[in-house]
């Protein structure tokens, strides 16, 4: 097998995986919103056919939500989130990563190792690697060894203290220096303002979508919501925003028409933990094919990535950059930080706002921090009388049978409780 054939082989295996998921998303559910077609097509083109999304300037990969995208855009570069959800790349990563690493990190590194990876990452000019969990921190040297230029964005292990905040602000400023060297461009107030305005428009669209999901009965399924936010990883930001705004308009119409995307009694699920990343949407899909509906989430592939917005007092470079730094650290509910009060409060508030009946907690095997936080979250939810299903899983499809039994039982128990409450 020569190398171009190998490329095609890899491409086709990973394309098959993506197509299988897309097929489920589109065909297993009736009445998908018409505006979702944009996203289905986008994933068909990018994952199925290997289309390269056009970008301007240098291409900067990011491995976590902590890399401030506004800064990257302001330097005329384009960010692309590298976190990967493909089982195919998970297996490639397993060849050179410890067996107990999490699927996400293995798949991300696997895709970087692979030739002709999808979505296209072979022309990365820089990888910004926030030092979040141990596995991502240690991935830095591995990525360098593969020949990528890597910038470690040093993240503090706690976020409450003023020292941590100032340390992080300095890290972000150093990233700005690195990006200036890379692009040869100067950061100006105008450019950063423009970038921030664009991101804030995208966030506004996301927030509208998020609020629309409060509707009971539900008007949008969680599997579609995850696909929308997953597209944000690589799609052109303005095109993405326009597509989400269009989706919002359609959902607004649905709301007025009294449309129901799921059964009226369908258990409303809050999804938390390790992020569902396309094509690994198996858990949300399982929940929704089993009669539940994911109405909200607290994950870094959706809510945590887009929800919190930046406020600036004086629109000068120094204030804007520090404000951005704050926004990427302070509200983050990632379990890598020392405490998790914020995450508990966020989950409880989401549960109240979205009239949630139960919580599904996904932990990728090997993601120790999510595993360690499981108990405290379960306790906090139990205190409110909210049932939680803890699922330890990975990207492999082997546990589908077992998972679907557990999820069905969980949803059934919620339904019974609801019936009894009536």
């Amino acid at each position, binding site marked *: 097998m020569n190398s171009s054939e190998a490329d095609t082989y890899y491409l086709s295996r990973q394309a098959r995986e993506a197509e299988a998921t897309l097929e489920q998303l589109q065909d297993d559910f009736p009445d998908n919103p018409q505006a979702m077609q944009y996203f289905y097509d986008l994933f068909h083109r990018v994952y199925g056919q290997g289309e390269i999304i056009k970008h301007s300037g240098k291409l900067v990969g990011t491995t976590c939500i902590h890399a401030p995208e506004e800064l990257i855009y302001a330097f005329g570069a384009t960010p692309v989130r590298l976190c990967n959800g493909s089982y195919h790349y998970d297996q490639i990563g397993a060849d050179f990563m410890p067996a107990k690493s999490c699927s996400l990190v293995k798949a991300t590194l696997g895709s970087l190792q692979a030739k002709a990876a999808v979505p296209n990452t072979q022309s990365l000019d820089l990888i910004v690697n926030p030092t979040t969990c141990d596995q991502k921190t240690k991935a830095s040297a591995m990525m360098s060894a593969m020949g990528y230029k890597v910038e470690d964005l040093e993240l503090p292990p706690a976020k*409450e203290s*003023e020292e941590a905040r100032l340390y992080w602000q300095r890290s972000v400023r150093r990233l700005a220096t690195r990006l200036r060297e890379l692009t040869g461009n100067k950061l100006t*107030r*105008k450019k950063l*303002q423009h970038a*921030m*305005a664009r991101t*804030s428009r995208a966030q*506004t669209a996301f*927030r509208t979508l998020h*609020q629309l999901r409060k509707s009971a009965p539900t008007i949008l399924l969680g599997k579609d919501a995850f696909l929308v936010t997953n597209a944000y990883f690589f799609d052109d930001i303005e095109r993405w925003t326009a597509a989400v705004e269009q989706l919002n308009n359609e959902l607004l119409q649905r709301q007025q028409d009294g449309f129901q995307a799921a059964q009226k009694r369908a258990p409303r699920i809050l999804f938390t933990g390790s992020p569902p990343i396309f094509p690994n949407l198996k858990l949300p899909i399982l929940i929704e094919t089993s009669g539940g509906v994911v109405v909200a989430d607290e994950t870094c592939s959706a809510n945590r990535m887009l*929800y*919190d*917005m*930046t*406020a*600036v*007092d*004086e*629109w*000068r470079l*120094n*204030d804007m950059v*520090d*404000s951005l730094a*704050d*926004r990427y650290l*302070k*509200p983050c509910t990632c379990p890598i930080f020392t405490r998790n*009060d*914020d995450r508990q*409060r*966020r989950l*409880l*508030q989401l549960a*109240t706002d979205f009239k949630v009946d139960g919580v599904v907690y996904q932990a990728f095997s090997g993601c120790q921090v999510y595993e360690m936080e499981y108990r405290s979250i379960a306790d906090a939810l139990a205190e409110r009388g909210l049932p939680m299903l803890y699922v330890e899983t990975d990207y492999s499809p082997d546990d589908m049978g077992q998972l679907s039994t557990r999820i069905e039982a969980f949803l059934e128990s919620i339904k019974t409780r609801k019936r009894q409450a009536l």
Partner: protein
Amino acid sequence: MKTIKTAINNIDLRRFRFWLQLFFFALLMYGGYFAIDLGSRLPTFACAFNEAGRGGICYLFPLQHQLGVPSSRLFSWAGLAVLQGLLIFSLWFFALNKAWCGYACPLGTIQDWITALRNRLGIRYSRYSQGQFRQLSRIKYLLLALMILIPLGVGAALLPHEMGTPFCDICPARMVLPMFTGDFSQLTIDFSSKTTMIMTTLGLLITGLFFTGAFFKKRFFCFFCPMSALHYLLSKPALLKLKKDGNKCTSCGDCYRVCDMEIREIADEVNETNIMQDDCIMCLKCVAHCPEPDALKATFAGIPIFSSTEQGFIKRMHKGQKHEQQ
């Protein structure tokens, strides 16, 4: 009702504050020309030394005078006058709470103008470190204590009578505010005695510090203001309140980011509902910059009058960006 509420929550706070501050500035600085007299128990720096234009008088001036009467008189009928003064002061104060600082105080308004000037010149502001902040924050209580103890000492004939109004002697408002009605006579050193010489020199130095400090640090003087300390001690029963619902807070820190007084608790405290801290000037910028619905709000007698909303936040941020681009 709902439309009015939305309109208020969507308000451009920056502009609203600018005009309201200008109104209060005119009232307190030039009201005297229009025969306006709000009395001498005002909980804000309407300086008594701005004799021609003042529309009322800052309470600290009569308070020091009252405390400086001979001790024998103070502990008999003159004591009643002190209590009566405190009562009227409190009533004024209860209405607006610390919003007197953020909206009415002429010295505060001047500092905001200096900040606007700095911003226009493209010069960045400076911030304190948390350690410095905690230390500096205490000075105002020290000044308040001295402001009460020194006149008492004068009354007891332990200190020279020229120190009867020690805080006014060193207060930058005494030198700065009369200038706005064309009176520059306060900008002098009084050589009539050793005490007056020291106090007026100190006053001049502090005024110099006031202008330099306010240029680099937002609301520089407010950290040291004994009026602010007195406010805080009386703030429990005030009608206007700053409330926080910690459950709705995402700890994003946007409120702390924009706070002129660098009050960390506004972002970090999630259990206390009454969130106003001693340095707070109730400018309500935190409410305007909070994207979480109802996480922060100002209430009057328990009724919400201005709440944080997602829509209001987005609107203001959008406007802020545009405003600066021009």
